[in-house]
């Protein structure tokens, strides 16, 4: 099932890409324009992803027996924590949002207790803040703290 979904997704991606690429002028072989390569790539991708999708639907895919050993709940929580991090990154600031992400990721990764995750979160956030903001002059958002 997983392979069919992945192949289907790639087929859909190819169609969508080609649809948008067709919005740019193809030109001609003597004078190729901005849509020349994107359209060629899109058509090729539709053919190949379509072929792979059909094969997997016919039960002839080479990864049909692959079973993911992934813990979907933890994966979902991890992705969610990263989404929240991106959303609060600027308004809340680097230090607080990074410490929160680290703590959340460690708890999702089943680190026991709260002292070690809390200490690592705070120390690592401060360390990276110093490295990026002070040494590399990256304009990290200050947010609520400063």
């Amino acid at each position: 099932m997983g392979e069919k979904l992945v192949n289907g997704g790639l087929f859909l991606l190819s169609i969508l890409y080609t649809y948008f690429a067709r919005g740019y002028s193809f030109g001609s072989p003597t004078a190729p324009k901005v849509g020349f390569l994107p359209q060629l790539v899109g058509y090729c991708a539709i053919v190949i992803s379509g072929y792979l999708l059909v094969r997997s639907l016919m039960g002839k895919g080479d990864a049909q027996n692959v079973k993911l050993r992934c813990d979907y709940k933890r994966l979902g929580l991890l992705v969610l924590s990263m989404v929240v991090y991106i959303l609060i990154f600027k308004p809340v600031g680097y230090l607080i949002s990074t410490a929160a992400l680290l703590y959340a990721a460690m708890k999702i990764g089943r680190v026991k207790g709260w002292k070690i995750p809390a200490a690592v979160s705070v120390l690592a956030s401060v360390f990276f803040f110093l490295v990026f903001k002070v040494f590399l002059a990256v304009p990290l958002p200050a947010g609520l703290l400063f």
Partner: protein
Amino acid sequence: MLETFSALFDGFAVCFSLENIFACIAGVLVGTLTGVLPGIGVTGAMALLLPLTYGMDATPATILFAGIYYGAMYGGSTTSILVNLPGEAASVITCLDGNAMAKKGRAGAALSIAAIGSFIAGTIGLVGLTFFAPVLADAALKFGPPEYFAIAMLGLVLLTNLTGKNALKSFLMVLVGLMLSTIGVDSVSGISRLTFGIPSLMRGLEFGVVAMAVFGINDLFGTLVEPQEKKEIGHVTLRELYPTRDEMKRSVGPILRGTLIGFLIGLMPGPAGTLASFSSYSVEKKLSKHPEQFGQGAIEGVAGPESSNNAASSAAMVPLLSLGLPFAPPAAMLLTGFIVHGITPGPTLITQHPDVFWGLIASMYIGNVFLVIINLPFVGVWASMLRTPANILMPIVMVITMTGAFATNNSVTDMVVLLILGVFAYFVAKYGYSMAPLAVGIVLGSTIETGLTQGMIICEGSVWKMMTRPLSGTILWLALLLVAATLFKPVKKLLINSKDD
């Protein structure tokens, strides 16, 4: 010949500055750490460290990057031998005999031979790079857009044939890479493509961010959300590091053969290190008087593959430095490192930036010496790194990745791109799609587009004309033959199946 030696000595002079020596040591240290720790790939580590080089000059930055690359090849053997856990794909085959030797109490000897073999192969590979790259670069000065297009196409075709189990899936990933490379403002017409009104997408997707996503975030998810096996980590003392005279004698041939195989395979596109180590293992098994010992702790099974993957990493620099065309993800990451610092690798690199070119090559000689120094006596320290709990280490890596993505352009959009591509890569890679063709597709996208469009104009819109130009024609026909051979396989299989029915 004398000119090359003179230039190389100038390179050593450049390399012996405090900043460059520090960059070299830092590079090989981080590279070894990358190789030792499973879950952080070499390309991901290079992508993570890219923002840290922004404040550096071009020479130390590229020296640091190259150090990570060949350092990782060294480090991968430590975990393969001690824990039966390859830190790098190129070290997978070393697990077979290396770990078997460790179980027999010969871990120290296996580690020593791996380090000695890697040093010899890395150094011989560098001699090849020193003399081969300038010759190729000189020839490449005569290349036009059709030739560059042809070389890039041949590289991608070879890559799809050598990567993963299914060439069509690899080719689809190349196409996805090319799709991603078309996002942003077209450099020729100035028209913005596929940006959907998002201003920060106008500059296109940063390769560093894409590499962090498909090699960093992808691996990170795998480590954090999949069950991990607990491994026993062996102890090695300094006294145990000496190989016996017989082990040394049996290793000489495999090291030299591995070097040759590795260098030749390293020149080809694809996962050169992995292919080289597997090829070397198979050659040694065939040539051995005791093939039955392979898998049970044969020293040849460690010496050959470990030498081979190090020679391959030197050879992979040849197309990058002389043509500016990277055919493997770490080389593509090196290219990004060059470009970030305002340097375009290619035929003119040697003449325009001799300090960078020869400084980099000289640093690799020095780096190889450092690798032996930091790998052998401190093998116990490297092994103890494996005791760091992954569920604490990986969230820290995740934060560096997210911060690195933001630091690339000081933009949150890059963090969004990182997350989307990371999730995409995690699922797609599980079903047999390799990420290396995608990464190389993105990097070669602009070369292919420029080469194709300008080539078509030069050849007056005639594909036949492009196919009949002496050099581009020969290369394109070769690529076409390879495609035909790949497509012929499923057709042949279909015909055989229908006959059986």
